[in-house]
């Protein structure tokens, strides 16, 4: 248990350092779930739970000043609980959602109070042309947050299993089946957020195209993405030269036909 907690700690550090490693999405549940599975010796379950949590948090992304729930702690504790106690995936959602929200509050507090303090110190170093000082403030901000948050996550894993188990045991079965329903409809929130972000009158029809291709023809998402790429090429290269960057070319084309 102690070794596992240590491994979970290292894993959480990796997750919290996502934006240290090129914002490469290693903090997403689909990746964290796999790594938890690897550490706890049940890779398949880890990946499956990760996939379910990924769908729940599909719309969760950092944009501007709005921070998504902390997926690292939620994914790790949710996935590890399911693996350790062999419970249903719905339990992972029941645990992960509140944990991630609580941890995000703490993290926000750090980013409201602690990091601006360091940034203010960096301002001072800028006035002294002290390059190393600025580097140091950045590193302190990065690692202090990661270590604190990862420490809490692994402590939750270490101390939590029993406490969580007794809590989960008193959950009535209708709550569990309700969570199963919720897991099915929550991805729609993520899709709706994304669509709101990129849709306009000209492109709305493609949403329905994708939907119909899957609903009627049962194509895979990979398949429709491939179709969509070809379709985009057709739309861009074979029609409407109006916005083409070469006026002369256009005139020649017109003469040919």
């Amino acid at each position, binding site marked *: 248990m102690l070794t596992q907690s240590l491994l979970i700690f290292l894993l959480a550090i990796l997750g919290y350092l996502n934006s240290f490693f090129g*914002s*490469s999405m290693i903090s997403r549940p689909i990746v964290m779930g796999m790594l938890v599975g690897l550490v706890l010796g049940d890779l398949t379950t880890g990946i499956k739970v990760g996939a379910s949590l990924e769908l729940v948090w599909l719309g969760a*992304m950092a944009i*501007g000043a709005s921070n998504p729930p902390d997926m690292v702690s939620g994914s790790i504790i949710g996935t590890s609980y399911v693996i350790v106690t062999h419970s249903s995936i719905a339990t992972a959602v029941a645990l992960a959602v509140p944990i991630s929200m609580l941890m995000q509050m703490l993290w926000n507090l750090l980013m409201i109070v602690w990091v601006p303090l360091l940034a203010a110190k960096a301002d001072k170093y800028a006035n002294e042309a002290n390059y190393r000082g600025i580097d140091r403030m*950045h590193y302190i901000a990065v690692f202090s947050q990661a270590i604190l948050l990862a420490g809490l996550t692994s402590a939750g894993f270490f101390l939590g299993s029993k406490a969580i188990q007794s809590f989960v045991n008193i959950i009535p079965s209708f709550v569990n089946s309700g969570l199963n*329903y919720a897991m099915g409809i929550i991805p729609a929130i993520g899709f709706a957020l994304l669509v709101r972000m990129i849709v306009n009158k000209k492109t709305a029809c493609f949403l329905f195209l994708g*939907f119909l291709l899957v609903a009627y023809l049962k194509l895979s998402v*990979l398949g*429709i993405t491939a179709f969509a790429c070809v379709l985009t090429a057709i739309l861009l290269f074979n029609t409407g030269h109006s916005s083409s960057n070469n006026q002369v070319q256009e005139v020649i084309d017109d003469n040919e036909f």
Partner: protein
Amino acid sequence: MIMNSNSEKLTKKEIRQVFWRSCQLDSSWNFERQQNLGYSYAMVPVIKRLFKNDSRKAKAALKRSLDFMAITPQLSSLLMGINAAMEEENANNPEFDDSAITAVKTSLMGPLAGIGDSLIVGTLRIIATGVAIGFASKGNIIGPILFLLLYNVPGFLLRYYGLNFGYKYGAYFITNAEKTGIMDKVTYAASVVGLTAIGGMIASYVQLDLSGIKIGSGKFAEPLTKYLDMIMPGLVPLAVFGIMYWLIGKKIKTSNLLLGSVFVCIFISFLVSLF
């Protein structure tokens, strides 16, 4: 531009350092000036090299780098490249008005963040997820690996070439790209692919099992889903999506929507359990 004998020039080494340092942009994010500390950290090698003989300009450049910054991480290096090119001119040209640097930074970060957030964090990620999740939900390790590759290969290529491009062509390229409409075309192409993928994912991954509800009585009872499927397969997921889309338009916070969905589902399941 007057080239002094002691002209300061950036080398490949600093550009490489900016590349690696740009990977940490979001890791010291804060609510006051967002990515300012990370951005400054990334610009340190450039400023250190260019202004090693001019501490007054070095201080001004460092302070500038600590201004408010909000940009998509994968596109940040493009701005850093432009910024580096301008600082280089600032170091060599005594006539250079350094307020232009701040002006270019603030005017470019908004549009770049807008394009980057919707194309990379939104569309590219959702396509990567859509392709990967089919494997992952069956417990196949190809899922997570595919997700990371599909998202990061384009992400890091953009980061790498963006930096070199920005440094080479400066701010001119972006304004030019906006004029010729290349940006519009890229955005259009990405939204077509992104929306098609999302449409497909709505049909595959939004589920509401209504098979418990039956229409009719006795031996003529048929599950409601059968009738709904006759109208159109996937009608329920589409309706659920429509409701969520409408609710988000009503400016309801996502976290409330998420908790609300959970409570509504538990409540319905409680009602069902009574019968």
